[in-house]
């Protein structure tokens, strides 16, 4: 039984982490493509048209992997977490069904035409289709984040006679304050991923002296969107998210921060290694009063430590949770510095000549993926040992009829399949980047005629 829980957690963690590498770029890049298409529609300038087509091709590959790795996620609720599904399906079924009905139909109808159908749809309707896909991807994000928000901060439910949950108030469930903040924070993070990738490709072309017009456009758009989204992800959205955790999941905040002993005037740990058995942070560098201030708005506020809570309510992997949170926050800070510098140089008109900075911008693109993954690990490890915070423990949510051996079988299958998908993805995207944003007519694009 215990190993079913372990393997199911590992499988869900692995498949969701892998899956989310793709939608985060989709959701961020979609609006950048919409911007390029809008400029193309308004000005007729082919620099924008080719930029939009180039990114739409990469978007298409990314979207395809995102879709196929996303389908197993919804079904795993039932296959691996049947007890959880039965217990809370009355509530989370709403958002999971709405995601399919409102978002997936929209995205799936339009995506093929966005990637391959520009000539057929004509400029205006192709632009509309691109906007539709962008909207669909954000709508999908909202529904799935509302589902997650219910697990983090359950609201709008009542308890039925058999102990399971029942929808109490649809509007409080759908407009969960946790979901609102989470959505804004997460979408800013997706824009960071999108803008860093666009910037990195711009930097690559600038360094190689290729596609000068697009290099310049990608750098300009990427660093501007990057600066705005890096600022917003920290403040107000990240700040509000942390305050939400401090208010509703104080035990998670204590573990994220490695704050073992409660008290007032609490410091913020920057670096150090949690030593859970000794209940301290080793080799730590910290800032006095900062946690009190960030969590509750004044320097002397009392912040509960882990020792204020019974041990069976402590998150189950405090070390990993601590590192996940610090990696996210640390990278987020570095992103702001990098983007401020890039925009300063761009304002001086020197960005495309600053080769050192271009190298840094080119090599920076993997880090938003790491920061986003670490952020989600913070949220999900911080919720442990609960699958629905303070209502249902993770171990109670698992499918008890599925053996650990069966779960390991499917986990091994996913590992192999996703490895192949990853290699394929990198190969195809690298090809597109090597080919670059050239005009379609120049290389004789062939088309099926439907007349």
């Amino acid at each position: 039984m215990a190993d079913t829980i372990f393997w199911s957690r590992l499988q869900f963690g692995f498949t969701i982490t892998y899956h989310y590498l793709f939608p985060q770029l989709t959701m961020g890049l979609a609006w950048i493509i919409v911007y390029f298409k809008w400029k193309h529609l308004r000005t007729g300038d082919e620099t924008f048209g080719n930029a939009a087509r180039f990114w739409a091709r990469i978007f298409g590959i990314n979207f395809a992997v995102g879709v196929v790795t996303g389908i197993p996620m919804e079904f795993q609720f039932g296959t691996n977490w049947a007890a959880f599904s039965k217990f809370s399906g009355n509530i989370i079924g709403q958002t999971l069904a709405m995601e399919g009905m409102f978002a997936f139909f929209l995205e799936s109808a339009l995506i093929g035409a966005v990637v391959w159908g520009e000539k057929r749809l004509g400029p205006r309707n192709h632009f509309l289709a691109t906007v539709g896909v962008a909207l669909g991807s954000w709508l999908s994000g909202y529904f799935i984040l509302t589902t997650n928000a219910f697990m983090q901060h359950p609201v709008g439910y009542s308890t039925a006679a058999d102990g399971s949950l029942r929808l109490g108030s649809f509007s409080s469930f759908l407009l969960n304050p946790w979901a609102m903040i989470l959505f804004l924070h997460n979408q800013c993070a997706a824009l960071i991923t999108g803008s860093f990738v666009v910037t990195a490709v711009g930097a690559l072309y600038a360094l190689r002296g290729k596609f000068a017009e697009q290099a310049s456009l990608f750098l300009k758009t990427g660093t501007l969107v990057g600066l705005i989204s890096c600022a917003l992800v920290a403040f107000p959205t990240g700040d509000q998210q942390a305050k939400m955790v401090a208010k509703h999941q104080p035990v998670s905040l204590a573990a994220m921060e490695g704050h073992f002993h409660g008290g007032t005037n609490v410091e913020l740990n920057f670096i150090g290694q949690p030593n859970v058995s000794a209940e301290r942070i080793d080799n730590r560098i910290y800032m006095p009063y900062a946690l009190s201030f960030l969590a509750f708005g004044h320097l002397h506020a009392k912040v509960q430590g882990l020792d204020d809570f019974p041990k069976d309510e402590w998150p189950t992997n405090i070390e990993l949770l601590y590192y996940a949170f610090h990696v996210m926050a640390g990278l987020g800070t570095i992103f702001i510095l990098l983007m401020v510098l890039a925009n300063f140089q761009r304002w001086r008109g020197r960005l495309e000549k600053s080769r050192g900075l271009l190298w840094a911008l080119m090599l920076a693109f993997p880090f938003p993926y790491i920061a986003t993954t670490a952020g989600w690990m913070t949220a999900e490890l911080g919720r442990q040992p609960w699958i629905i915070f303070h209502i249902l423990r993770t171990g109670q949510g698992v499918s008890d009829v599925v053996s650990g051996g069966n779960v390991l079988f499917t986990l091994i299958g996913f590992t192999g399949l996703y490895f192949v998908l990853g290699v394929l993805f990198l190969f195809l995207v690298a090809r597109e980047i090597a080919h670059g944003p050239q005009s379609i007519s120049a290389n004789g694009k062939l088309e099926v005629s439907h007349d």
Partner: protein
Amino acid sequence: MIETWYAILSFMLVMFIVLEGFDIGAGMLQHIVGKTEAERRLVIAAIGPLWSWHEVWLVSFGGVLFVAFPTILASAFAGFYLAFFLLLWSLILRGISLEVSGHIAEPMWRTAWNFIFVASNLLLAILIGAALGNVVRGVPLNADGKFSLAFFTNFSPYGNVGILDWFTVSVAVFMLVTFAAHGANALILKTEGPVHDRSLRLARRLWKIVLLLLAIITFETWRVRPELFSGMSPKPIAWIGLVFVIVGAVAIFTGLHGKRELRAVIGSSLFITGLMIAGAASVFPIMLHSTLAPENSLSAYQNAAAGHGLVIALVWWPIAFILAVGYALFIYRYYIGKVKAAEDNQNPY
């Protein structure tokens, strides 16, 4: 309310089987009707840009099952654990092969992805058929309303059953041939030239086999679940399903022999819809039948979501449905008619 949600779910499943059936069927025939690479690309082009919209009917079916019958979902998804993941992996491979094979116009690349495309479509057809067979036959539900199906036990459809036995394998074979025939009808409508002619010859043969297999599985169903037939008489909807099957079959045969391509496609859609309606109506209200003890069966009435969640979902579902169809029509009008050129538009460099 419960009947309405059962009908909505059945409708969504029918949409998935009929629409995705075109793509699965056309896909698995890719090497039979397409002899050159250009002809094989034509099959992909005929499937068109809406295949993922077709697939979403399955994903949304899962979502609506979640909201309307969470207990059934929990029992069935965990019980069919291994089969479910095979289905998911086949969907992954098929989606990826459809999307990436066009990226590079290189013979080895195309050969590899075409092979994966055909193989995953075949596997999907068998798995969907076996799944439908399992729902009709029943699963080994215990008194807690749970089960865990092995792939196979002793291949008998009674008692402690597995996913595969002589009955479910028969249904899987039936669905495999039906999808192939359904896909051939779609290819006739969407293509010209050699692919069209081969599809037409194939469809004429396949539909005869479908009718023969239908007679066989009807007899087998009568052996395995005789009560479904005796319980059918007071259910007018099941009889409507049968009318659909007969009208559909007539439309298919007159369509295929009278060069009325659209009539044949509508006919095969009606035929499949009719079978699904008859099946869904005759098992109702039992959604999961127990092969161990009838009293363990899970009924729609006892396992529907409680409270006002279903009323709320009944408000948003029709809105979402109208929008969903609207998006598809918006795109589809650009893709009406036959795909003509030998090359598709997935930009090879």
